[in-house]
């Protein structure tokens, strides 16, 4: 059924459907706490009747994730949502969730970190958590946000993976924007998301989840996490097929190319910047530039091989970051330039920081700028606001 809804409501709806799909398992729940611009997703969830479901209205993001940890370690399917400083405050438990290999799914609405306070989009908040052991998916539109949340459960709960996933959407650009979104029926979701079976859940057996790890045990546990992350690529592909079978539409892979087959100059981006980049590519092409766009949908695990393959023919690459690691530059750029060594120029642009409205013409200007360069310079901050 097609519905005109915001990404926040789409996320709340996806969590509800995924939650109901676990009614024959150990149930569904999570701790929830409001923060702009995510609040509508947990408001939506709090209004739903979910058989064998329990949503706890807690006192902080730190506890929101802690409740998810308690529920997930007891075998339930879990959801929470946060943004910006909420994610920063939650961080300690975000890390714990991954260490305990709990398949928690979180909606993360990308918002500028403060203070000073700014509620608009910026990717620094979730990129702060790139090393936490979570799978990270960045979305381009509401349909992708909805689909990715359902997909995230399937991916996270796969016994070969067992890592939490955060589905990231741009503040306001998606969170508060109505878009037509195709919503499946409950039985379709039931088919795609069978009840969660978690072998290592806490039960009545005397086992301690946590406790002490000495260096050797830590080496082993970290190695296991890395192996699980490495398995994500293959598992992702498998579940893409299952997704298409269940819902009759496809879901994008870890990297999403647009007109890159013969492209010589390519813009690499994340989130809704990818949609803007496509328009810029069309304009640049009309002007005879062999332009292309590559959107990084999955940032963790980092799809290095897919990026290398997709950028094989590119001579010049512009990595546009809606984030800044002060003292380094763009975060996506800093990771990508280590991987892609075939291009002549891999130039970093910082654009739309703090929610600056990035228009297609800004990105066409980047194509023009790139044409002039034969070697990169440190990250260029492009002001648009």
């Amino acid at each position, binding site marked *: 059924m097609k519905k005109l809804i915001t990404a926040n409501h789409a996320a709340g709806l996806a969590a509800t459907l995924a939650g109901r799909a676990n009614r024959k398992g150990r149930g569904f729940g999570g701790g929830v706490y409001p923060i702009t611009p995510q609040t509508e997703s947990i408001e939506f969830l709090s209004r739903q009747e979910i058989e064998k479901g329990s949503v*706890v209205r807690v006192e902080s993001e730190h506890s929101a994730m802690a409740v998810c940890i308690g529920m997930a370690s007891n075998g339930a399917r879990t959801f929470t949502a946060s943004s910006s400083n909420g994610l920063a405050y939650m961080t300690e438990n975000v890390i714990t969730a991954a260490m305990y290999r709990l398949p928690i799914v979180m909606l993360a609405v990308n918002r500028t970190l403060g203070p000073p306070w700014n509620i608009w989009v910026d990717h620094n908040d979730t990129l702060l958590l790139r090393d936490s052991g979570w799978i990270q998916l960045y979305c381009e539109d509401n349909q992708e946000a909805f689909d990715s949340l359902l997909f995230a459960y399937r991916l996270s709960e796969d016994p070969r993976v067992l890592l939490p996933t955060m589905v990231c959407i741009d503040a306001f650009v998606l969170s508060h924007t109505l878009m037509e979104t195709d919503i499946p029926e409950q039985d379709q979701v039931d088919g795609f998301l069978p009840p969660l079976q978690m072998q290592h859940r806490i039960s009545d057996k005397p086992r301690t989840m946590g406790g002490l790890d000495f260096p050797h045990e830590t080496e082993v546990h970290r190695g296991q996490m890395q192996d699980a992350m490495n398995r994500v690529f293959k598992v992702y592909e498998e579940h893409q097929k299952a997704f298409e079978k269940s819902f009759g539409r496809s879901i994008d892979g870890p990297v999403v190319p647009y007109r890159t087959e013969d492209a010589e100059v390519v813009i690499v981006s994340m989130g809704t910047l990818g949609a803007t980049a496509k328009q810029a590519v069309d304009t640049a092409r009309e002007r005879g530039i062999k332009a292309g766009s590559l959107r990084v949908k999955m940032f963790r695990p980092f799809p290095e091989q897919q990026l290398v393959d997709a950028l094989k023919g590119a001579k010049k690459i512009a990595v546009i970051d809606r984030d800044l690691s002060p003292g380094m530059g763009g975060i996506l750029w800093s990771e990508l330039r280590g991987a892609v060594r075939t291009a002549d120029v891999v130039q970093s642009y910082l654009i739309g920081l703090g929610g600056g409205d990035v228009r297609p013409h800004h990105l066409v200007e980047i194509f023009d700028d790139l044409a002039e360069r034969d070697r990169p310079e440190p990250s260029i901050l492009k002001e648009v606001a």
Partner: protein
Amino acid sequence: MQEPLLDGITQTGVDRPEPILRAGNTNCGGCGMSIGLQMLSRAVADRTVQMVIPACCGIVTAGPFPHSAYGAPVVASTFASAAAVATGLAHVAKMNGEDTRVLCWAGDGGTYDIGMATISAAAERNEDILYICYDNEIYGNTGGQRSSATPMGAVTTTTASGKLEQKKDIVGIMAAHGIPYVATMSMAHPEDLFHKMRRALDMKGFRFLHMLSPCPTGWKSEPGEGINLVRQAVESGLYPVVEVFDGHRWVVNVDSALSQGALESYFAAQGRFGKTKIDLAEVSKAIHRNWRLLQMRAAFDTQKIS
């Protein structure tokens, strides 16, 4: 675990196949927490429990992976999160119709300080959790720093000339939440302690138990003296043994002689008070004040005013 405890008064009848605190734990000799866990094991008997232990001494107790000294399922939580993780466990148990008691086992750092917001919120929501605080009045795990449970005058590694402030009134704070049950427990009065654990285990809603827990390492006291110290704390009136039902019905379980002698011995036996000049007359005054309040609360029959 087969011998009858206290001449059979608190024999459980059903012994757990495994004690909650197994051999191989890393607790210091004479740690009050060890005694508390043994008592808990008796009280729990054959009930199904799941425990949450934050990053206090209590989780170091487990020892290194893959071994655990806990003979019960345990989730280790981050320092501030015990009551929230327990909330999650309890909700899933309830949704699945399981009669599991979810309990938190946390020190004063994780309760009075860093976990305060989490506990207060879980209490306000009246979550179905039994929260037990073993209060050693110090950050024991990190080597003995002051907490808001450290009594005035105690030397810690961060209060070289003695703590200047009073200990936080955790019983008053928890009772103010109006939760079904708050109680303090003295390990020198094991029947009372045992019955409170039992009562709390079988109640619903948020229950808070407080146990003064000698820490020879931080208190600079003889490991074998722990129970005596607690007895002196009770006899001197320093540690009232009470319970509070629904936040308003106060009961004093162990009368105190408010003994000056016990007070003197209590302070003299602990190296942590050695370097500071504790004004016992002042301490006495505070104790008397507190007891008058307690007696008024206990006498105030809330049944009669409705």
